[in-house]
């Protein structure tokens, strides 16, 4: 009992149950084989019967074809024969005609009834075809030896007053050819039978035709005449020598043979079993119309079922083999049981460790959302949906000096190696970005460190960005990662330079790129676990579905949930094969920083557009008309300066004016791309000078300085930026 219990615990089988399994399997196999055998036998019998019947029918059609030709040869000449009765000298022409015009006919006679013609008491001209040369010769049957009026072919049609097929016979003149004769009475005007017209046909084609029917290799066929004479049979000595009756007398199953014989002689068709020489035979028989013949096909049962017996043997052999294999498998399985058990335990332990590794890995990346609740200019959400194994996806972000440093990456491969590389990558990112603001430099130094110690040839696709939260300016660098999507007025891919992934080659240069975020712009970073998520039909989620999922303005968290839900719906029950990582950054800085904007060409006439622009700014600040006019004046002077000095005459350039009203302070920022020109560098005009000393120019910048509180100039990125402010 104890060992039994142990066996059960391990999920193994006791010897008893193993034995039972073998016995049940054997019995089942045997029963199946027997049922199959019985059904197969029945099928084969039916099949054989169908085939025999169809062969018999087909043979009968062929025989009837010849029989019909012979009958037609005689019937078609009857009218001529009747007509010729009055001209006895021409009577020999009738058989001539019958033979010459009908190839199946080998001989014919027109035999007068004795005494019908006074001149010729016995008259029977016979025309025969020489079977070798094909020539016709004419003989007379009216000889003493032959005595035609006593012949069956002559007496029977007169007796029946109808046509008649004679019992087959061996032709005495033409050698060993089996023949049969069709005879028909010829009547005169008074309806009295005056003569008999005949056609002889050879039956050697019949032997061939019947012999050719081979339903099964050892089957044989027979034809018997109406008197029971064997006309065709495989044993040639029996032909026209023995009746079936005589043959039956000598056999062991006389009754059965006699039954077949009687049925055949009475023109029936059917099928009967007969025992002969210790074997059961199946006899299929069918009559031939008009001639009184009957054909039969004899099938030895042994032969009939030989195929099925062979298959049965093979099945038995396979069964034995199967049972033997079953026994072997059961033995091996029992032996391996213990081995599997320990392997399973090992696997469980490894899985458990992987799980812990995963948790440590996840603890490294920021997971509290929203991560910066105090910041109004940034809404951020991120998530990693891990595949079953630990994976190599990562994201990270932090804020330093009013800049958001963020990254996303995907380590090649899976499992523990990938997760270790992921941990290293994340640490390197933190280390390199602690004192460096340029994403390209951060990536380059990460790459150098990783390439140096990369013996396993693993690499990381990595995207790093640094977003200036005040100005919305984004610097980024991509090392072989899939392009993030940027959400501005439209959704598009962030333009990317093709840099190689991290860890491939030391000393690589990485191209840095930049763009500017406006209020409400957003960025979606993801790993290919998202775009390549597959459903059961192996279709990928794809970038177009990612883009579709991004439509509509939502919080970062809501965007994230929406994308996750869409992917999960798409994937359905298909197993997740790769980590799926999403980082969504929604920029809300720069809001209303400069809500008023005007762009002018460097044409003095464009200054007429300023009053309306200043009016809108003044409306927001609710300024009185005088202050409004002063602001207009200051702005005009500043802009006129740019138009006159920054752009050389004849060139086309733009002047951008941004304006804001924040906390009782009005700010104008005038930007142009002209030559460097600092209006604040001009010497201050002295308005106390008298008429003679007063210079004509310099009043403009003086007015700007007087009206505004601050005037500051900056030359940055090939641009003149003049910022003027006034508090009210």
């Amino acid at each position, binding site marked *: 009992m104890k060992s039994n219990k142990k066996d059960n615990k391990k999920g193994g089988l006791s010897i008893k149950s193993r034995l039972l399994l073998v016995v049940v399997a054997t019995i089942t196999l045997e029963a199946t084989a027997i049922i199959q055998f019985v059904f197969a036998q029945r099928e084969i019998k039916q099949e054989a019967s169908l085939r025999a019947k169809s062969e018999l029918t087909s043979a009968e059609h062929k025989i009837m074809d010849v029989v019909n030709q012979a009958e037609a040869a005689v019937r078609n000449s009857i009218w001529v024969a009747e007509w010729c009765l009055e001209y006895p000298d021409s009577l020999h022409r009738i058989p001539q005609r019958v033979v010459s015009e009908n190839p199946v006919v080998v001989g014919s006679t027109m035999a007068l009834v004795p005494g019908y013609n006074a001149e010729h008491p016995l008259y029977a001209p016979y025309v025969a075809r020489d079977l070798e040369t094909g020539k016709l010769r004419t003989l007379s049957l009216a000889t003493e030896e032959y005595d035609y009026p006593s012949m069956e072919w002559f007496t029977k049609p007169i007796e029946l007053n109808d046509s008649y097929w004679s019992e087959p016979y061996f032709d005495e003149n033409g050698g060993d050819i089996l023949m049969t004769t069709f005879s028909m009475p010829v009547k005169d005007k008074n309806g009295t039978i005056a003569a008999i017209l005949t056609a002889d046909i050879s039956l050697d084609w019949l032997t061939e035709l019947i012999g050719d029917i081979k339903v099964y290799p050892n089957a044989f066929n027979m034809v018997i005449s109406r008197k029971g004479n064997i006309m065709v049979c495989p044993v040639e000595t029996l032909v026209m020598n023995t009746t079936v009756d005589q043959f039956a007398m000598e056999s062991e199953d006389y009754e059965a043979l006699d039954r077949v014989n009687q049925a055949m002689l009475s023109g029936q068709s059917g099928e009967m079993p007969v025992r002969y020489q210790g074997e059961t035979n199946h006899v299929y028989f069918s009559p031939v119309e008009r001639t009184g013949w009957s054909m039969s096909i004899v099938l030895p049962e042994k032969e009939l079922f030989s195929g099925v017996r062979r298959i049965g043997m093979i099945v038995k052999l396979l069964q034995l083999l199967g049972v033997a294999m079953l026994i072997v498998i059961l033995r091996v399985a029992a032996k391996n049981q213990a081995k599997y058990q320990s392997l399973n335990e090992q696997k469980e332990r490894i899985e458990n460790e992987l799980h812990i590794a995963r948790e440590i890995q996840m603890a490294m990346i920021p997971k509290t959302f929203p991560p910066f609740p105090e910041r109004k200019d940034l809404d951020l959400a991120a998530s990693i949906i891990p595949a079953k194994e630990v994976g190599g996806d990562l994201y990270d972000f932090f804020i330093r000096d009013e800049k958001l440093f963020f990254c996303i990456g995907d380590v090649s491969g899976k499992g523990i190696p990938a997760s270790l590389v992921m941990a290293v990558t994340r640490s390197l990112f933190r280390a390199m970005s602690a004192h460096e603001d340029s994403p390209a430099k951060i990536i380059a130094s990460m790459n150098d460190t990783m390439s140096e110690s990369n013996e396993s040839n693993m690499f990381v696709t990595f995207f790093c960005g640094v977003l200036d939260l005040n100005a919305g300016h984004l610097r980024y660098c991509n090392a072989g990662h899939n392009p993030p999507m940027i959400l501005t007025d439209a959704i598009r891919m962030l333009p990317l330079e093709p840099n190689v992934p991290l860890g491939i080659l030391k000393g690589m240069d990485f191209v840095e790129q930049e763009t500017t975020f406006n209020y409400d712009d957003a960025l979606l970073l993801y790993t290919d676990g998202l775009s390549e998520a597959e459903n059961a039909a192996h279709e990928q989620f794809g970038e177009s579905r990612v883009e579709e999922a991004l439509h509509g303005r939502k919080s970062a968290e809501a965007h994230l949930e929406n994308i996750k839900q869409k992917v999960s719906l798409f994937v359905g029950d298909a197993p997740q094969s790769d980590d799926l990582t999403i980082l969504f950054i929604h920029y809300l800085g720069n809001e209303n920083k400069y809500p008023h904007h005007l762009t002018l060409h460097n044409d003095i006439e464009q200054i007429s557009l300023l009053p309306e622009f200043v009016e809108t700014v003044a409306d927001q600040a609710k300024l009185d008309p005088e202050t409004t006019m002063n602001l207009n*004046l200051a702005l005009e002077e500043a802009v006129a300066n740019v138009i006159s000095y920054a752009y050389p005459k004849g060139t086309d350039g733009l002047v951008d004016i941004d304006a804001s009203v924040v906390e009782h302070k009005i700010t104008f920022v005038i930007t142009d791309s002209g030559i460097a020109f600092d209006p604040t560098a001009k010497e201050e005009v002295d308005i106390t000078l008298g008429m003679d000393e007063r210079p*004509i120019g310099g009043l403009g910048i*003086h007015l700007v300085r007087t009206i505004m509180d601050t005037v500051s100039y900056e030359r940055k990125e090939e641009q003149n930026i003049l910022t003027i402010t006034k508090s009210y």
Partner: protein
Amino acid sequence: MEVNITRENNIITVRFSGRMDTPGAQEITPKMNTLAEEADKTIILDCTDLSYISSSGLRIFLTLRKAAADKGGKIIVRNICDSIRSVFMMTGFLNLFEIQSAK
């Protein structure tokens, strides 16, 4: 920006109407340059209908004033509104021009 010049007994009256901003000033500069040749006379700059002036306009006023000083003429600025007066103040023009009010 419109300018209407009338002459009566050696007194030239110039009536400005509209905004004398940078393009406005540019528009009337040729006329004003011609007028500067007659700066030996008394020129009244009537600003009743002038609503705005920028440094370009001020420059025209200053050019005429200098011409008058050279040729012994006289420039009188008449009827400036409060906002233009404040511009004149900011630029020290109140000291350079004789300013008359209609009242």
